[in-house]
């Protein structure tokens, strides 16, 4: 056993703990992004904390002749290792077990590889601009990287819903991409506008719901449904660079 174990676990397990589908970055009031970053991957390495003893993760916290129980930060995945098992072996064994139970773990990269995504702005020009005491007081490379990753993650979640009749809840096996590949022909930049067929002014989400009810034959989504938020994100993302022209027909 050596002192590198906690770091190995931290690096590998961050993917497992921070990679789940969430909108964590978008909730709450604006915080200093570095704080968000630091709190995001909640790594709780191994201890089941039966005692108050701040023992290193590799130490036998439940003395057992047959080895050590190690618990993954998901609080569920657990395995027993012989005392003296190298930390990297423990880490990869736990990670493999977690991946086996979570076959969808790589959904983000799969979604990106399948359907592509227009990149979010990288905000590189803001890096290093210091103005102490402000919300955007000092912006690091990690900050802008995090903003981009989190924003694209929401859009990717939207892409996944958009391309899946099941996630949309379609009763006729129809998904959005069947008429709108790459979200083409969705023209979000033209909303709000007077929708002649409905006789009223609508937002993009109203048209999403119109499609949900008609071609897709699914239940309409509430405005704050995570699927609605994600799909809006995806559709706007795909029209990056287009001029806003609300009211345009």
């Amino acid at each position, binding site marked *: 056993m050596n002192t590198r174990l906690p770091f190995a676990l931290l690096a590998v397990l961050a993917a497992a703990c921070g990679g789940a589908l969430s909108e964590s970055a978008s909730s709450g009031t604006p915080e200093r992004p570095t704080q968000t970053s630091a709190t995001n991957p909640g790594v709780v390495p191994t201890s089941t904390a039966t005692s108050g003893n701040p023992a290193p993760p590799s130490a036998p916290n439940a003395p057992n002749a047959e080895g050590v129980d190690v618990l993954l930060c998901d609080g569920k995945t657990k395995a027993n290792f012989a005392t003296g098992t190298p930390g990297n072996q423990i880490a990869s064994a736990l990670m493999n077990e977690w991946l086996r139970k979570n076959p969808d773990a790589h959904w983000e990269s799969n979604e990106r*590889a*399948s*359907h*592509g995504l227009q990149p979010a702005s990288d905000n590189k020009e803001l890096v290093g601009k210091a103005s102490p005491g402000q919300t955007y007081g000092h912006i690091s490379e990690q900050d802008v990287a995090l903003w981009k990753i989190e924003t694209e993650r929401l859009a990717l979640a939207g892409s996944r819903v958009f*391309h899946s009749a099941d996630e949309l809840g379609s009763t*006729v*096996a*129809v998904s959005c*991409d*069947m*008429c*709108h*590949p*790459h979200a*083409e*022909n969705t*023209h979000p930049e*033209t909303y709000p506008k007077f929708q*002649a*067929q409905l*006789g009223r002014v609508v937002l993009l989400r109203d048209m999403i719901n*119109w*499609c949900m009810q*008609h*071609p897709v034959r699914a239940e309409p989504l509430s405005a704050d449904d995570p699927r609605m938020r994600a799909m809006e994100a995806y559709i706007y993302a795909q029209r990056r660079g287009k001029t806003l022209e609300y009211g345009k*027909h």
Partner: protein
Amino acid sequence: MPRGPFKSVETKYMEEREAALTALGRLDRRAFLKVSLATAGVVAAQGIVNPQSFQPIRVASAAEAGKGEPFRIAYISDSHLYDRTINDRFVNSLMRAVDDVNAMSPAPDFVLYGGDLAQLGQARELDLGAQILKNLKVPVRMMVGEHDWYLDMGEKWRDLFGPPTYSFDHKGVHFVVLNSVVEKDFWTARKLTPMQRMKTVAGLDNGMQSSFTVGDEQRAWLKKDLEKLAPTAPLVVFSHSPLYKLYKPWNFWTDDADEVQAILKRFKNVTVIHGHTHQMLTNRIGNIHFHGMLSTAWPWPYAPQGLPELTVQMSRPDPFDPQDGCGDGQITVHPDGLVDKLYNLWNRNPVNVERSYLASKGTRNKPAASTLTRY
């Protein structure tokens, strides 16, 4: 225009239709006889009349000197059938197309089915399609699409319809049917199941798949098949994908299009009719004239990176009209191998793209442009 009361798209449409009917009443018998039989057939079948579609094109072309007479074929394409219990909308649309074709008078010589009969290549989808197509009164020539193929690599389709690559002669015109949806293996290395493979290909915007090709084998076959023909022989090629390179991310594209075009180069006139793009699409590359087909299931958007210069855009489909932008059509084949291509857009006026429009590189007989084009 003066401000009037709010009128829905439907109201405006009915008003236009009314105006057209009135205008038709004013045509004298002589003028009426100039009306294209092809157009009239469609028009009568769906109860729409519009003087714009009554251009006396066919009269002019019929008078052309040539070995044979022009003849007419019909097309139906891209029905994307699910099993009836899952989704009956696409099933009903295919039945509507069959009714359209059966209502043509005189009947077409045969019907081309343009591929993507099934949505996920499943036996029950293909069986259902075959069953519906049996209601056609005239023979059908089948072409395969990627949605028919990638579940069982064409096994069921071949069972039902025979080999996907073949040729035949009809009234002095040589017809070739290709399987242009051959993709190189992207599934073995990724250990995809047949259904995962099918669903990957079925996603138009799914970048995990490969590009469509005709492939070495079929190109060799094509070369040999055309060997015996004189350069002046009228030649029509049916392929599911456009046999040129338009937009790769959606496979509006054939990867070996240049090689295929090279084989066709020695002919004076070649017509290529393709499916897959679900839209009005027209192109000309040298001696080769390309025409797309409408889908009965749904229209695809136009490729974001632009369109061939000669394409006459279809009107922007109205999502509130479930069959808008869909339809079927007719092809009048002339003795020189060039065609008049009629897009029978359901619930809209038919649009005829004449051979003279393409032959004159767009300077003559340009079809009326639609007012609402893509975003």
